[in-house]
């Protein structure tokens, strides 16, 4: 059995699955239920200064669905905790005492003044919490008050606040980053420069999930008006994975511990975040959709996969895929593949044909008997047929061996790696010396 335990910044947890700072971690009651269900840790929902904030009294979430009303994306206009600071601190202390083997991180958001941070840090330290996470991410509501993503969008502020926190507490400091920026590497570098021990990402993405076509109000609608919310759930995972990878492979931040967040729904999602350099993952939407029990599948799945691959511990996985994330210009242009359709598993829906014929390269033929076949002379290996096929592994991409003819280009596949930087069509190409 693989060992799922983690040691992140010295914070130990029995597994890498933490609940993200969010509605599920707002109260002792919920967090105890989560720990009973087997979660490795929680990031307690963001604390602020008293007087505590208030939330809207109408709907707080909007949603995007896939087939069978499967929740693919959730958007949220809930603010940080709307309970008194003292109540939260008392509960955090009680839970940490009762569950010493679980990670207890406390998310914080107070104004950009050192005094404010100096006031709250000792109070959190007193709970026995294992660390803090600076909420520089929430894009809605609090950002209008100069907090949340308003801080996360200015690298200088990130560095400044991180430095204040490091100076005023012995607890590890995790900076939670907003994805609502142009280049995630800048805020990550700022966090590191400020002395932060780790970054966590992504926070939610500014979003409007839908418009009510009867009332012409964005959803969720509060008395006929809507405000952008923070988007999360399976739909944001690709954005999060990329941002995590950007930080993991940036020479300036390489090695900086990362807690990965964004659409982690299954063990597989979690394994992918770990492979791209995350030491732990944080989950919210999956728990909000299915309840805390989903962690059982995450743990058993990750464990089974690690056993199958011979990975004994989480540390052996973390970052394994990072060396394979590169720039487009370094991709091997001599790697040639062609789509292949397995006729035995084909159910003859014709979606590959429609996609290729209408929107790609007319590289799939269709017979009277609805037999679909790839025309190698036209196939550029775009992968769209694979993506739209409803049957897994019915269409695959097969590599052409070096020495074989690519009938599309009329060229023999070269055995050697060659990329854009040396390609004759590249005006800036430098000939290999």
């Amino acid at each position, binding site marked *: 059995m693989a060992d799922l335990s983690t040691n992140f910044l010295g914070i130990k947890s029995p597994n890498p699955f933490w609940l993200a700072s969010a509605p599920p971690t707002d109260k002792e009651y919920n967090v105890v239920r989560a720990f009973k269900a087997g979660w490795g840790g929680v990031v307690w929902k963001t604390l602020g200064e008293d007087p505590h904030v208030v939330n809207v009294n109408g709907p707080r979430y909007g949603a995007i669905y896939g*087939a*069978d*009303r499967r929740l693919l994306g959730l958007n949220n206009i809930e603010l940080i905790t709307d309970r008194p600071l003292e109540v939260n601190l008392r509960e955090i202390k009680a839970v940490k005492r009762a569950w010493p083997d679980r990670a207890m991180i406390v998310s914080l958001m107070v104004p950009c003044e050192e005094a404010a941070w100096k006031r709250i840090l000792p109070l959190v330290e007193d709970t026995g919490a294992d660390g803090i996470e600076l909420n520089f991410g929430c894009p809605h509501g609090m950002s209008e008050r100069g907090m949340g993503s308003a801080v996360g969008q200015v690298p200088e502020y990130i560095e400044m606040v991180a430095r204040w926190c490091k100076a005023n507490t012995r607890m590890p400091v995790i900076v939670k980053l907003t994805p609502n920026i142009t280049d995630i590497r800048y805020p990550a570098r700022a966090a590191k420069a400020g002395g932060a021990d780790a970054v966590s990402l992504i926070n939610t993405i500014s979003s409007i999930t839908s418009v009510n076509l009867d009332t012409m109000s964005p959803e969720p609608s509060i008395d006929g008006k809507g405000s952008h919310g923070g988007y999360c759930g399976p739909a944001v995972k690709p954005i999060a994975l990329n941002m995590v990878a950007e930080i993991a492979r940036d020479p300036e931040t390489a090695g900086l511990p990362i807690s990965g967040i964004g659409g982690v729904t299954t063990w597989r999602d979690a394994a992918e975040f770990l492979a791209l350099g995350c030491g732990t993952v944080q989950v919210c939407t999956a728990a909000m959709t299915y309840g805390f029990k989903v962690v059982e599948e995450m743990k058993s799945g990750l464990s089974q996969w690690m056993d199958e691959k011979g990975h004994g511990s989480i540390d052996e996985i973390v970052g394994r895929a990072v060396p394979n994330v590169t720039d487009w210009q370094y991709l091997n242009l001599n790697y040639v593949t062609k789509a292949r359709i397995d006729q035995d598993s084909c*159910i*003859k*829906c*014709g*979606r590959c044909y429609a996609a290729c014929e209408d929107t790609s390269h007319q590289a799939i033929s269709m017979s009277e008997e*609805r037999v679909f076949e790839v025309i190698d002379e036209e196939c550029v290996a775009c992968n769209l047929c694979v993506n739209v096929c*409803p049957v897994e592994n019915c269409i695959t991409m097969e590599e052409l061996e070096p020495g074989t003819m690519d009938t599309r280009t009329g060229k023999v596949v070269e055995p050697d790696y060659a990329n854009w930087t040396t390609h004759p069509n590249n005006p800036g190409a430098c000939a290999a010396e």
Partner: protein
Amino acid sequence: MTNSPFTPGIVPGRLQPEAYEANFADLHEPLDGHEALVAADRCYFCHDAPCITACPTEIDIPLFIRQIATGTPEAAARTIFHQNILGGMCARVCPTETLCEEACVREIAEGKPVLIGQLQRYATDTLMAAGVHPFTRAAPTGKSVAVVGAGPAGLACAHRLAMHGHEVTIYDARPKGGGLNEYGIAAYKTVENFAEAELDWLMKIGGITLETGKALGVDMTLDSLKAEFDAVFLGMGLAGVNALRADGEDKAGVMDAVGFISDLRQAGDLSALPVGRNVVVIGGGMTAIDAAVQSKLLGAETVTILYRRGRDAMPASRYEQDLAASKGVRIVFNAMPVAVLGNGAVTGVRAEYTRAEGKSLMGTGETFDLPADQVLKAIGQTLGGTPDGLTLSDGKIAVTDAGRTGVSGVWAGGDCASGGEDLTVTAVAEGRDAAEDIHKALVG
């Protein structure tokens, strides 16, 4: 009420009154909105979809299902009605298991097709319940067309002609329009007088006059219609019934299954409808199944279908066979009746097992007797009278493309015409296509 399933003879009221309502309730409960969305989500929106090809009326099924999935069942209904104005009835009676749903790629992938028939009903019911007729007529052409028969073929033809601006008069021999939709389909497939409601809804297009109680050859001739109208469409179905050709066919208690079903469909009170204690149905088509199942539902103690060939050759689908079995009907394959037993009234049927020799069937010599107080013949229908001048092909009016008969100005479609399976949906397609051809001929 003293009768029970065990009362000998052909008697009414074998069941408790409330049992009739339960037995003849909708075969499939209509999908509610949630169920429709779940079912619609399974459609893959196939390219040049096999289900469309499998539908005789070529309804754009992926499109209408996508319209349901996106919350516009009314638009879905328009997509359906554009191809098949009797899409509501077809959703109820089509053997989808041998048509669209058999071709569905999810039948191939998982053995569970998208519920196309039930989704079609959801869409068409939604629009019809709103009382909306989705089509309007083109400007009047000044042309008039006679349609003989107000069944699926005649109605589809008349509706399409009316849409194109022609004036249509439909003649039907029976007291009500609808044809087999009204008189010939199992009651549990078309509850709450759906056939009549659909007919009324269809007529909202305008420009169609329905004259009932008028039979071709009795109240008018083909020549008189040709003289009075610019074109004639014949869709009068099959009025005759094949003979059993077994000894004793004239005994009391032997009747045609179509007549039995028709009586049942028109009965105001099912408990007043007599049915035998032991019923034997002869035949292997949908009529045999419908008659057998309904006999059982009326309270017969035993119902047996005798079919002379094997299961695979049975025209009624496996789904229909299983439906019958689930209601307690026994199907005996590879057996044919050789004599109806009894002294005046039927007491039994003597049957002989068969074996196939090439294309013909031979008796094996082994016989067995089934007790019976009622024998229902469902061994096929015939054209009956044929107007002069029409050529026949295999006992039906010979037609070429789009229903043209050998007589100029006369088209035919539905069960009375050659070609196609004798299904409601096929009749609709033939009536519709004939109407388009008539329209082309009339406006040049």
